[in-house]
């Protein structure tokens, strides 16, 4: 990647999109990584020699993927409406979620994950509970399992949270915005604190590729913060690495190649392994951006009285 003029940087040389180069100087491209590695770390007089370029490319991409999962802290954010089916289809480059929030009345409310099951697949069965198949031998499935149907139609019990109500903390059913409760006889024990939250909860169906919400999420705006693997949908020209991790990526490729190559002495493998680990540590510290100015603001909260 060549250096660009200020005009190219700010206005992309007058071509749309204007923001194409904004912030680009923080990154080094995959092409540069592979080229530089071949030039500087591979050859007749280097530890790495006689290796195909595609192996270098593979390890470079694997290293970038791993960095994207945690070290880069490059969070992608997507806003989508959740409809009556209480479903949020995961974005195409989704790998893992960071935070899920509902955007309501100009405020963001973080949602909590419900690790209890709130979705299920289902098979159609006859009156003897025998599974039904089609003519090709495939099992027949309903559109929704009963579990899903109950959730979507607000059939499941949940905790009513309204301090001003006499039903505060009671289990009940929310239907069309109205709450219904069992006739109050005796005491009720065992509040499930996991789901005892005024906001809707969610559960992620990874294989199904969707986030399933509790009934209170219908017709709300969901903000999903997630991480991807940095592969930019297979477009190699867009794959980049933060410059703080550039040396680490070279060390990672070197280690990955040497550790899987026959005849490389173990002390050399160990040397490059340690180099890789220490460079990752350094890069993580650097990208954390810990400096006195930031600590100062946090430490100012020390003397604050907790009421």
């Amino acid at each position: 990647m060549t250096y660009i003029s200020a005009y190219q940087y700010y206005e992309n040389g007058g071509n749309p999109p204007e923001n194409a180069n904004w912030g680009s100087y923080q990154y080094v491209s995959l092409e540069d990584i592979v080229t530089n590695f071949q030039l500087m770390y591979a050859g007749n007089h280097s530890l790495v020699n006689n290796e195909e370029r595609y192996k270098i490319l593979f390890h470079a991409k694997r290293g970038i993927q791993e960095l994207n999962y945690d070290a880069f802290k490059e969070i992608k954010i997507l806003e989508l409406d959740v409809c009556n089916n209480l479903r949020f289809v995961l974005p195409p480059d989704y790998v893992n979620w960071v935070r899920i929030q509902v955007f309501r009345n100009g405020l963001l409310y973080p949602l909590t994950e419900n690790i209890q099951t709130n979705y299920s697949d289902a098979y159609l069965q006859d009156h003897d509970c025998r599974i039904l198949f089609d003519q090709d031998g495939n099992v027949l499935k309903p559109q929704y399992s009963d579990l899903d149907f109950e959730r979507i139609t607000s059939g499941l019990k949940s905790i009513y949270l309204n301090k001003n109500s006499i039903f505060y903390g009671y289990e009940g059913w929310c239907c069309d915005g109205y709450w219904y409760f069992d006739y109050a006889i005796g005491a009720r024990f065992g509040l499930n604190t996991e789901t005892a939250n005024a906001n809707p909860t969610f559960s992620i169906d990874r294989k199904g590729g969707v986030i399933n919400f509790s009934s209170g999420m219908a017709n709300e705006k969901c903000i999903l913060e997630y991480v991807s693997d940095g592969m930019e949908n297979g477009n190699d020209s867009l794959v980049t690495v933060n410059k703080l991790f550039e040396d680490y990526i070279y060390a990672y490729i070197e280690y990955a190649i040497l550790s899987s190559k026959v005849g490389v002495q173990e002390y050399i493998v160990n040397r490059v392994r340690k180099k890789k680990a220490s460079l990752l540590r350094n890069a993580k510290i650097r990208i954390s951006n810990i400096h006195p100015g930031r600590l100062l603001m946090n430490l100012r909260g020390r003397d604050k009285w907790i009421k």
Partner: protein
Amino acid sequence: MINSVRNTVLAILNKNNYGYISPQDFNLYAKQAQLDLFEDYFYQYNYQVNKENARQSGTGYADIKKGYEEVIDLFSVFLPLNFVASQFYNMPSVATTASDYYFINKVLFSPSQAAGGGVLATDFVEVEKVTHKKINLLRSSLLTSPNDIYPAYTTEGDLLTVFGPTGLVQNSIWCQYIRYPRDPQWTYTTLTGGEPVFNQSNPSFQDFELPLDDEYNLVSKILQFAGMSIREVTAVQFGGQLESLENQEEK
């Protein structure tokens, strides 16, 4: 150089009336000798690389490897490959690039030419050689599948198949290769006193393409071929001794 080599060979062979070789025979032996020395350059180059890695080689005037590189580069050719169709190109050959290849060093792809913008020297992308065993695996790999930025190629007979880029046309694929040296031809016009007279202006004249310092080796190799031809063991042995002496001195 070829006339000097021939004169030296004949001078040695004719001593004590050992024998004589015709210009046609000399040209045959000269070709063999040149090919032998040419191929040896690559092994010598590798030997020097190993010496450097063993820290037994110096820099500056002691950089022997550099000398071999320079000689090999004398035979370097950089030309576009002949486009056949779709993703296929002809391998370098006398018919398409005016010379046969000994060693393909790199194959380059011109994205600008494929996009219809002409060849730009600054945007060449190296096409990687992949074995037939690996190419299908590579193409089905999500992370390493060949594309415009990381293209790959295989070879089948006289065809080169490019994987990854689309819109390939003539001049999209270029090749830098090491060609074979041209066959040496000692040419003459007339016979004077029974002897052919050297004629350098003959259109089919071709001198040795190896550097001057290889004259010694050429003489010793041709002597061995010629000695075998005239069934003179002494000439063969002498040529062999010269060669082994040269090798010992070099190393």
